[in-house]
């Protein structure tokens, strides 16, 4: 099981993996510990959201994706 992500440490440009397998890039962080604004890079469950920006709920974030 991956480590719990502290959303307050997420900064723009970081990529996050969501519990449904989607990957998103952090756009901005209100630092409320609850939400981050992110753009979908991929979404196997709903490809129509790719490219769109959404508020991502902290409990929906599964892990930080290391970018090479």
């Amino acid at each position: 099981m991956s480590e719990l992500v502290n959303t307050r440490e997420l900064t723009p440009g970081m990529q996050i993996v969501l519990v449904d397998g989607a990957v998103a890039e952090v756009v901005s962080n209100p630092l409320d510990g609850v939400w981050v604004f992110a753009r979908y890079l991929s979404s196997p469950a709903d490809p129509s959201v790719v490219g769109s920006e959404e508020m991502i709920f902290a409990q929906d974030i599964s892990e930080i994706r290391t970018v090479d």
Partner: protein
Amino acid sequence: MAAAMGTGYRAGLVDLAKGQVSREIFVNDAIYAEEQERLFARAWLFVGHESQIPNPGDFFVSGMGEESVILCRDRANEIHVFLNSCRHRGMKVCRYDEGNTPVFTCPYHGWSYGTDGKLVGVPYFREAYHSQLDRGQWGLVEVAQLCNYKGAIFATWDAAAPSFSEYLGDFARYLDLTLETWEGGESGVEVLGGVQKWLIPCNWKFPAENFCGDSYHNISHRSVDLAGIGPSGSGRRDMREREMARRLQVSFYERGHQTGVYVLPQGQPTPPAYADSPVVSEYFAHCEQQRRRKYGEWGRVIGSPGELFPNTALHPRQPRTIAVWHPRGAHQTECWRWYFVDKAAPQQVKDFLRDYYIRYSGPAGMTEQDDMENWNYAHAASRGVIARRYPYTYEQGQGFEVADYEYQGLRVPGTVMDITEAKSSEHNLRNLYRRWAEFMEADSWDELATWRRADPGLVQAAE
């Protein structure tokens, strides 16, 4: 109005014919609860100043009656005042005093709102709500009316209330003494430093009454006068106008606002002030010249403490400040004090004023400490079952009011009591309770906006 006839709110609690007010209105919990609905939910209340939220996303958490509210500027630069309570389960969505944010997020279940109040984040919206929650219906509760009056933000919860301008009436001229720049220019005023906030164990009407223009209690500030904290090295403020001006108490019967003022004789320059600092003294001397030039005869009017009904205290000069008396139960008041300075004033002037202001007012201010001690013990000594049987008297100067007061060619708006020789009167205090009783009795603004009866145009505009 029953109050105006002298029978008063609940048969005698406010008896203006006798000039008496029952202690019950200060210490009775049931009356306090009724005040929240009939008074604070309907009147226009001071929330803050635009200089506190200069940029999009800026917010300042304030209060309206018992309610916590957020004063904020949205991304489109529009100013809002919202109830600081999540629509889902009521948790405060903002627990900071001030700051900048893109969203207000409730820490309980995570609902999140934009600075325009719209509900933008609902956890598990698709999964738990099946995308069926109508987010458009569940934004933050916004005040019914908001007015940016010369930078000061006022709001009311009552959609039926008259506009702020109508609520003010001609009292605007006196409010301007606090909100306009000292020399009358367009550069505006700003809040100096932070807002002071503190609790005192008394009913909110004790400080409200005090700031209506109660000059009778000056004796309790004698020790401060002796200490000489004033900006010219003596007294508690520069008061040379007292020696040459008419000293007036001004009430607006139909609206409940009141203030003290000094009116200088024609051709009499404003006495010099701020002698402790040549820079500050020169600055204000220059401002006074400009002010006279801009306002003409009205420039002879010098502001003194007043009260915008119900709980906004004005102190136009030395120190220049607005206080709000937030009700926190019948037996406690949360005082908030804002200090103002002309934006364009030199930094040296601002620094000098800051030091003087906090020496005078606020929880550590020597003058306000005197006041608080009086309110504290007056309230405590009025709570007992025996004490409650005995009303306070407000009959000082009753019957000596003048409706069309004029002094050397200057007509002074409002109903005036000239206390130059009398030294003191409770004219303004009676006005506070007159209006208080009317609010407590009236069921609608048709009853409260009595001035409309004399001006059918206003009725039409309101409709």
